[in-house]
């Protein structure tokens, strides 16, 4: 596990237009993490970044993406014109003296992973606080502080293949169970027209969603990375029995909805629902029973009544609990089947850009760290993923590393498939055949060319 906090040298947001005059440089810095460096050190860092951005703009119309020095990598992201988010990561490096005594390089965090971290942090910010430009000058410093400080310190990366590509884990269901979910959602929306169901998640797998792919990814990440882990922890502490006895509850706002004041604690989201033509504000309401979690949105202009929530609770509770039990049963059967299938020790990963569907071989067992994938291999996969354009509409690449890892990447239209095989004395043909077997076993019916 890579401890992101220890690797992040600094993280800051600046906009040069906020303090255009000399002596006002500090005003340009909207947010700076960590809080230790004094104003001079901050000004210097931001000044360097401003100069770098300006320098590159004379040669390229594309925004600056990265600055590499001997010991650090600065990753730039300009989500809105003039607003720059910069993540500075220490990169382990060896000097001649160190390499002479065989000191290792240490783990490297992939630049693309760090870039994704920046992008998703902005998207999360925009979903919960709105775009930077809509926040007034007087509020923006506090808003950023309140949002990004906890965000940065809560993030960690497991150094697993799932970090390289940000996708959504879908739960495959049989027709009947899926139909039950659909009926439940339809019935609910007809009875409570103010409430719009935006997603249905089981454990950490998505079953249904009505948001656009980008918004969905952000909301999904919020649920499985932030909200649900806390909730699961509470359930474990509270004892399994009590949790099962209760039919269901509102988990956002965190204290549930009991009294009128709770309604004021509802989180607001900035997003575009199906029939919207622009981003609007909505209340987010999350309801959970057993392992099933349902998200609703309500227009912020709606007059909220405590009664409506009480009746909604009574309506959803029993129904959702039935559905959750049914799905749970199915998952158990499915898990048994895949347990037999997953005897192969080779790791794989599938990603479909169109619906962000993401599937990997069973995640590494935390008890067996030796099963973890080497960072070098991850880095090669991440390179293939970054450079997938070189594969065209369909193509494949097979790479062999000095320590006998064979990494295969396939791309067909918007789908990608990766397999890692560690095998001594294999040849290209044997590896290709093995990949084909894995592809057929795990990805039945999904077509990759060349075979």
């Amino acid at each position, binding site marked *: 596990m890579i401890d992101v906090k220890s690797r992040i040298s600094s993280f800051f947001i600046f906009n040069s237009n906020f303090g255009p005059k*000399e002596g006002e*440089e500090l005003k340009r810095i909207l947010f700076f993490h960590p809080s230790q460096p004094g104003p001079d050190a901050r000004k*210097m860092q931001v*000044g*360097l970044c*401003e*100069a*770098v951005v*300006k*320098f*590159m703009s*004379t*040669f*390229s119309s*594309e*925004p*600056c*993406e*990265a*600055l*590499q*020095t*001997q*010991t*650090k990598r600065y990753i730039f992201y300009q989500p809105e014109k003039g607003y720059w988010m910069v993540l500075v990561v220490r990169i382990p*490096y*060896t*000097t*001649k*003296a160190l*390499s002479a005594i065989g000191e290792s*390089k240490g783990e*490297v965090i992939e630049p693309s992973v760090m870039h994704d971290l920046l992008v998703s942090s902005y998207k999360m910010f925009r979903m919960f606080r709105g775009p930077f430009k809509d926040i007034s000058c007087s509020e923006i410093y506090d808003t950023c502080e309140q949002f990004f400080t906890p965000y940065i310190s809560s993030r960690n990366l497991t150094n697993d293949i799932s970090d390289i590509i940000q996708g959504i884990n879908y739960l495959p269901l049989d027709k009947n169970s899926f139909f039950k979910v659909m009926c439940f959602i339809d019935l609910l929306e007809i009875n409570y027209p103010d409430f719009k169901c935006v997603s249905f998640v089981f454990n950490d797998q998505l079953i249904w969603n009505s948001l656009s792919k980008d918004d969905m990814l952000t909301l999904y990440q919020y649920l499985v990375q932030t909200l649900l882990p806390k909730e699961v922890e509470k359930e474990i502490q509270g004892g399994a029995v009590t949790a099962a006895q209760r039919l269901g509850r509102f988990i956002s706002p965190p204290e549930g909805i009991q009294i009128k004041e709770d309604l004021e604690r509802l989180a607001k989201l900035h997003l575009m629902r199906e029939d919207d033509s622009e981003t609007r504000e909505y209340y987010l309401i999350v309801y959970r029973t057993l392992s099933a979690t349902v998200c609703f949105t309500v227009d912020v202009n709606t007059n909220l009544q405590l009664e409506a929530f009480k009746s909604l609770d009574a309506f959803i509770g029993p129904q959702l609990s039935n559905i959750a039990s049914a799905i749970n049963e199915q998952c158990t059967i499915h898990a048994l089947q895949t347990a037999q299938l997953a005897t192969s020790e080779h790791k794989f990963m599938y990603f479909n850009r169109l619906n962000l569907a993401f599937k990997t071989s069973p995640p590494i067992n935390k008890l067996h760290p030796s099963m973890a994938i080497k960072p*070098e291999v991850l*880095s*090669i996969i991440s*390179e293939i993923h970054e*450079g997938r354009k*070189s*594969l*065209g*509409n*369909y*193509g*494949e*690449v*097979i*790479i*062999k*590393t*000095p320590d006998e890892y064979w990494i295969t990447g396939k791309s067909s239209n918007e789908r990608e498939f990766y397999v890692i095989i560690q095998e001594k*004395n*294999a*040849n*290209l*043909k044997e590896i*290709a055949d093995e990949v084909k077997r894995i592809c057929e076993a795990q990805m039945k019916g999904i077509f990759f060319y*060349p075979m």
Partner: protein
Amino acid sequence: MASTSQDTVSSKTQENDDLEPGACPESILNPADTFEEFASEMSSSLQERNVLCTKSSTISEIQSEIAESIAEIKMRATKSSDDLQSKDESMSASASSSNLLEQDGDETDDEKDNYLQSPELVNKEKHVFILSSAGKPIYSRYGNEDKLAGLCGVIQALVSVVEEQNQDILRSITTKDCKAVFLVKGPLILVAVSKSNESETQLVLQLTYAFNQIVSVLTLTQLNRIFEQRRNYDLRRLLSGAERLIDHLLIFMEKDPAFLLGAVRCLPLPEKARENITNAITSTCNKIRDLVFAIMIAGNQLITLVRMKKYTLHPSDIHLLFNLVRSSESFKTAESWTPICLPKFDATGFLHGHVSYISEDCQACLLLLTVQRDAFFPLSQAKHTIADKMRRSNCLIAINEALNRNENLPTTNPLKHIAIPEIRHFMYKCKSTAQLFTSDPISLDRLQDYRLRHKEGGDICVKKIEKLSDIDYVRNYREFVSKIHCTSTPAKLIFRSNSNDTVLAWVTNGFELYVTFDPLMEKDQAIKAVDRLLRWIKNEEQRIFIMNAPTF
């Protein structure tokens, strides 16, 4: 076929022992891997770098060995240090090492912006700027250096802010379509701004070459001394003429895979012919005591290299010699006597070179490099003797046939001769001798053609490619070479197949091989084809490589 096609692309170790075309026990070239060397350069810390030590001089070593008390080499330094004293301080340094934001001041900035957007500079695929550490422009690939003073000031400020305030070294800045790579070497700052598909490492390598080209004209000793004496010195005064060398070198590096692989291309010749040429040189020169290297080249390819025992040349030094010969028309008309510094061999001093073409009817060029300053006449005489011997043994005809790519030679059109229709292009490097062979040797007139084409622009143009030229293939190999040699995640083998082509890149202890096949090539077919290809190279190795390492 004894070895099955299986183990060709699989178990490398056994295979290497059987088949390593071109390998020979002793090499004329120093096969030190440029990439590894570069990697160590990349990992040097700031403190380590600042002590740019000049190693003990190989040249003085030779001189003392010869034990003839020659007065110490006095290089052009005497002359140039006079230059140094001369007044001319027209341009005050725009360098402000401390305050970057001040540097961004309006007038400099506008001027810089406008000039960079002018037709002579905009839309170029690759810019190269060289400036002194005080921020004074020395070289720009395009445009006029004087007008780039503002830009150079900004570059200098960026470099020094990272160094002084962050105790760090600036390496590169990237956008989606563009990379800026920085290299600080001694008193110089070199920057490449490129929209090509070259990796950061490959760009730094090119900047290192450009630096070496300057060292080759001045020696490192002189370069350092100049800036020790006057930090603000305008180096352009000493480099007049060298700009053209750098221009040509930059084009050369973009086109010739020799740079990509850190290897030297040899002119394919029958074994006997090469032996005769080598004998002509050794028999003539063995009496000339202070001759260090005798090198014969033609069309950027090495014909033979005879050397003083114990000393070898690094491929990058030979590349500089290729570049020097190719860029200087004057060598064609007269015998020349010129000081040459070979940075890898000895960056601190000059060798003296007698450079001449063998004859009017043969485009082979002979370089005789010595540590003697006044050996022109004995070397000139030696050259004529060598030329006569070569003519008598029909070597000139052999060289001309190879240069004109006579249809009957198997090496003229290797792909046709190998007869594997699926192979579109390949390049092969023998690692132990640092020599390479490609399926489409670049001929003289074609290189000329690149230069002409280049004069027109160097602009980025999106063209619909009908048929790939060998240069396009080499362009495609760049990313494979960089992945294979990546320091953090190297690869042994890459097989990539898409609807345009199939590329196999394979590195073993003995060789590097890059092959382009038809699209969507089957793996077992590719394995078989590579097997046959290696056997063909093995068969022809005496012709396409220099398999011995003659000494005087």
